[in-house]
């Protein structure tokens, strides 16, 4: 039993990272209806910025603040420069553009920082908390705590500020939002900036666990997609729940299903995506879109 609980705890730790990237995906989808295939790569790029700051001698937490600020600005800039021209274009065009962004950002990071693996400092203390026969790494707790904090801040932003109200209005109906005087373009850019910031958090969280290299987020992205699909692409809370479920499911499948083992774990998100899309396409917490032909 303790072994099982141990697996669940580790799954939650992995799931928290998926949840934070899924959260970034969902934020952009809510505002623009775009699934940003480059989200993981943007997060990876942000992590490199953090690494660069630390390597230049900055204390970790200051580096994090700088990184988040740069990511926010970068996200807004990308929305303005790359995404704006194809806004309202067919889905195919937009997906291709974000795939182009994916390739570009990945290669750019490789160009600037080479493809060699870099060590990333772990902001949380080593060691583990022992309770009821289960040991929980402090870094797992730290990751869970940070994701919870991000969720809370986003909730406050959306529910209790004027900006958040405007953002919700744009997500619900851009045309009506524009009619009541909300600057829709600026809000969309804000959404991208916010998503890039949340993505940067997930990159910084995952870097000490994996290793920092340009392809770091490739594996995480597919789990984040599964998480967002499971939770519903239009539900931030669903993305977090989905991320945790995907993390636990993946860890348990790897540990207890003999055929899956550690190497076929990456099949778990595929099965989850297919299963959700066939059985409940709007996800657990999403609203089914009603289309008027």
């Amino acid at each position, binding site marked *: 039993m303790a072994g099982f609980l141990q697996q669940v705890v580790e799954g939650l730790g992995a799931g928290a990272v998926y949840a934070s990237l899924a959260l970034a995906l969902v934020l952009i989808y809510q505002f623009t209806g775009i699934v940003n295939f480059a989200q993981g790569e943007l997060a990876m790029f942000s992590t490199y910025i953090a690494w660069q700051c630390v390597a230049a001698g900055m204390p970790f937490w200051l580096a994090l603040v700088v990184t988040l600020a740069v990511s926010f600005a970068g996200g807004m800039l990308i929305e303005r420069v790359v995404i704006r021209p*194809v806004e309202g274009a067919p889905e*195919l065009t937009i997906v291709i553009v974000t795939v182009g962004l*994916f*390739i*570009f950002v990945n290669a*750019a*990071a490789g*160009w600037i920082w080479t493809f060699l693996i870099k060590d990333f400092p772990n902001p949380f203390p080593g060691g583990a908390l022992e309770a009821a026969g289960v040991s929980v790494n402090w870094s797992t707790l730290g990751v869970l705590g940070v994701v919870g904090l991000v969720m809370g801040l986003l909730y406050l932003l959306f529910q209790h500020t004027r900006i958040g109200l405007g953002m919700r209005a744009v997500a619900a109906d851009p045309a009506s939002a524009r009619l009541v005087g909300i600057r829709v373009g600026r809000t969309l850019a804000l959404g991208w900036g916010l998503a890039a910031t949340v993505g940067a958090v997930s990159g910084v969280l995952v870097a000490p666990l994996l290793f920092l290299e340009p392809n770091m987020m490739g594996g995480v992205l597919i789990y984040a997609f599964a998480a967002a699909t499971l939770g519903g692409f239009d539900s931030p809370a669903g993305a977090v729940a989905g991320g945790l479920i995907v993390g636990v499911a993946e860890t348990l499948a790897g540990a207890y299903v003999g055929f899956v083992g550690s190497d*076929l774990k990456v099949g778990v998100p595929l099965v989850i995506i297919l299963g959700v899309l066939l059985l409940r*396409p709007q996800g657990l917490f999403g609203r089914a879109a009603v289309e008027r032909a």
Partner: protein
Amino acid sequence: MSTTGTTEAAAPAPVRQRRRLDRRWAGLALLLAAAVYAPFQLVPFHVFQLTMVLVYAVALLGLNLLVGHAGQISLGHGAFFAVGAYASAVLLDRWDLPYPLTLPVAAAVAFLLGLALGVPAMRLRGLYLALVTLAIAIFLVPLLKRFEELTGGSMGLTLAKPQPPAWSGLAEDQWLYFLTLAVAVAAFLLAASLLRSRVGRALHAVRDNEIAAEVMGVRLSFYKTLAFAWSAMYAGAAGCVYTWVIGFVSPDSFTVNLSITMLAGLVVGGLGSLAGPVLGALFVMFVPSIAQDVNDAAPGVIFGLLIIVVMYVAPTGLAGLAGRLTRKIPRKE
């Protein structure tokens, strides 16, 4: 040129169209003649490179059916390419099948797999299809490594390349080139006739307006699934030829990068045209090897930038640009 230009303007529309078609066929015949002549003039390495261009061209033709003509997206076509390559390799390795027989089998396996995955996938809107295909491409590599006794695991399988028959008097690289050329020409003709038929019109209708297509009686799910299966079949055939040409398959040759590179090449070459896949294949083959001299990351930077720029300024890619130029020339005279 100027005299034909004036008579053309006076001729009734069907005649004009036929003349344009005639000229197009003449151009293709010339291109084919050059393609037949080329391997006798080039060193073996360049013949090999051209062979690989043809292999990619077949795969991109298939991807173009799906993306360019039916308007559906796939980020996982490398997986079908890999399935074709492995089907051929396993048949050669296990059952010592004569290599020409592996082509229909590999194509059929990829087709069936495409059909099986297409049925659930095509119930999904574009974006989810992209997700599912991406997940498939990522999942395939560990799957290939897992079934070690069949696929050779991470070590892959090494195979003897098809040898030229004595009567031909060709060297090995030339024989492989002509085999590939034959497959590519057949694939091209099949795609061209497919697109001119009722099916091609149905696919275009689905791409341009699903609702209108459905109202006109086009069965959306049927044609989408079929397009998916066909493009998988093309990728499988290309993979099979790849196995012949390289004589080696390993899981790491078919990572998700291959899928993304294929899509990138097709977009740059030109979506929805017959020349696009060929131009895209040239691009996929030669740009990375040239750019790699600058920096390991340079091909990615170029690919990424070009995809975005092409989508903004020339959604029909290089083929569309070339078409626009050639149409402009007579008008200026």
